[in-house]
């Protein structure tokens, strides 16, 4: 898969205050999550990629276009859903989305047709002639999504798209994003502080901390790497049990009193762990598959990543 975003020593400062500190990475996934604590630089990175802020050092390429030299060409292929409430006063949803389509270069009549399509797609078909001021928060979020996809961008940047949504609206938003992702027509950069949302939608995750890259992981590969990993709690002769497991090719990493993280040896099954425990005079109290959740990855990245804790 081709790189959708390439950061090349990207540095952004506001006055003397550095916000992004020499970021270098190539992002290639279908849906890339952008995570980080408040003030990590997520929104600044998005705004810089869109050309709203000038880099003070380095550069970035989005869809192959350099953001310093070809910002306009780049933005033709990008759709953006801002984090904050954003609309144009005294406009209906269909008017707003049509205007945005026309500004992206779609002729007037086709823009109107596309506006209807986009609003039906996001589920605002029946409310498309209502003024945006009368919309609920969830509806405004959907209208923002509609305007971000109306011109068929190749990259859709979603900044906190589920912010403030109630559970059904959040579910609807995530389903729409997944539908766009699975259509293969557009790649997605999904910025959120809600780990569950990112985990559900994204395949790759870029974690920022203090303006630096703390981690970049492919969730699927990470899951595969964790296959055969178990969390075990045992009693009895634990030392003999650990030695026996190591003798059978297992990797045992202590994870607290009587608890360890266990990676099974080649060809081994969980049932054999019980047999080894019995032969070592130990009792297995708990044995569960261990898979790093995004929360674990996020936490590890913040502790161990390049950003210091």
């Amino acid at each position, binding site marked *: 898969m081709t790189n959708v975003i390439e950061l090349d020593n990207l540095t952004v400062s506001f006055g003397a205050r550095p916000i992004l500190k020499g970021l270098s990475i190539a992002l290639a996934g279908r849906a890339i999550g952008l995570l980080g604590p408040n003030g990590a630089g997520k929104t600044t990175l998005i705004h810089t990629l869109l050309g709203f802020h000038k880099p003070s050092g380095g550069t970035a390429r989005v869809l192959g276009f350099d953001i310093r030299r070809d910002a306009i060409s780049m933005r033709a292929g990008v759709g953006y859903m801002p984090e904050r409430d954003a609309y144009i006063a005294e406009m209906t949803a269909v008017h707003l989305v049509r205007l945005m389509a026309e*500004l992206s270069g779609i002729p007037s009549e086709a823009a109107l047709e596309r506006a209807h399509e986009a609003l039906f797609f996001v589920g605002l078909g029946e409310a498309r002639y209502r003024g945006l001021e009368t919309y609920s928060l969830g509806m405004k979020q959907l209208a923002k999504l509609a305007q971000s996809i109306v011109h068929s961008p190749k990259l859709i940047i979603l900044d906190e798209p589920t912010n403030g949504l109630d559970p059904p609206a959040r579910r609807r938003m995530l389903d729409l994003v997944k539908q766009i992702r699975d259509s293969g027509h557009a790649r997605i950069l999904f910025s959120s502080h809600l780990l569950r949302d990112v985990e559900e939608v994204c395949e790759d995750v870029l974690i920022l901390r203090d303006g630096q890259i703390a981690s970049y992981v492919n969730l699927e590969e990470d899951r595969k790497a964790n296959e055969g990993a178990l969390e075990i709690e045992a009693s009895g002769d634990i030392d003999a049990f650990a030695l026996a497991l190591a003798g059978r090719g297992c990797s045992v990493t202590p994870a607290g009193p009587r608890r360890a993280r266990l990676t099974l040896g080649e060809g081994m099954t969980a049932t054999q762990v019980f047999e080894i425990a019995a032969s070592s005079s130990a009792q297995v109290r708990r044995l569960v598959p261990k898979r790093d959740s995004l929360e674990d990855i996020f936490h590890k990245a913040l502790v161990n990543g390049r950003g210091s804790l």
Partner: protein
Amino acid sequence: MAVYEHSYAPYTGALTPRWSRFLVIPRHAVREVFRSRLLTGTFAISFVYPLVSAILIYLHHNINALSIFELPVRALLPIDSGFFQAYVSTQAIFAFLITLFVGPALIASDLTNNGLPLYLARPFTRFEYIAGKLTVVVALLSAVTWLPGMLLIGLQAYLEGGSWLVRHLPLVSGVFFGSWMWIAVLSMLALAVSAFVRRAIAARAALFGAMIVPSALAAVINFSFRTTWGGLVSFRSCLDSILVALLGSETRVDVPAGPALFSILLLVGMCAGALALRVRAYEVVR
């Protein structure tokens, strides 16, 4: 794709040329602007003076009509530089009223509702955004100033004969450039105020103040220092001076045209600087 097919499909049709996209803004804005009955009424009334002027020009050249109304030719205003100076000055008042209705909300509403990122995240520059907003005001003001002015000159030239136009070429440039000076000042001032004052009603008050306060200040300076150079701080005095110079009229003015032009260019430059400063997708807190 039919609208009832709720799936995501890309657009594959042709795109409009890039240079023309700033015109999307005035096309959509003008539709909204004329929803206001007050503005529509003011806009309609602003054509009364050009209509009366056209009738006067017609009467000047129609003896039969004069005799019907029993009017001596001397009772009519002469069709000279004074006639067109009065035309531009009167229409400038209507231009100001229209600007007062239209201008302040143009950028202010986008700033209030955080609409700028929606525009500027597209293949659309800040310059195009400002040009688009400017076009809304410029188009409306052109319709009530130099466009009818040119028609009046055309009517006079048609009735008087082609040689009149040759003898009065300064009138053509005076009405055209004099109107454009007003349009440039009013539209730039309106957008600059709109970019700084987020509430449209407050922006209207600020724009009204920008017209009244400098004139009052100019009067105070002139009175206090027994001079006429105070007119330099009033864009109205400056524009009058420039118009008089363009038309070759003999009306007495406060300040010479050269310094007045410099003052106007400075004001327009300051408005452009203010717009460049304020029209950004996001404000950066340093």
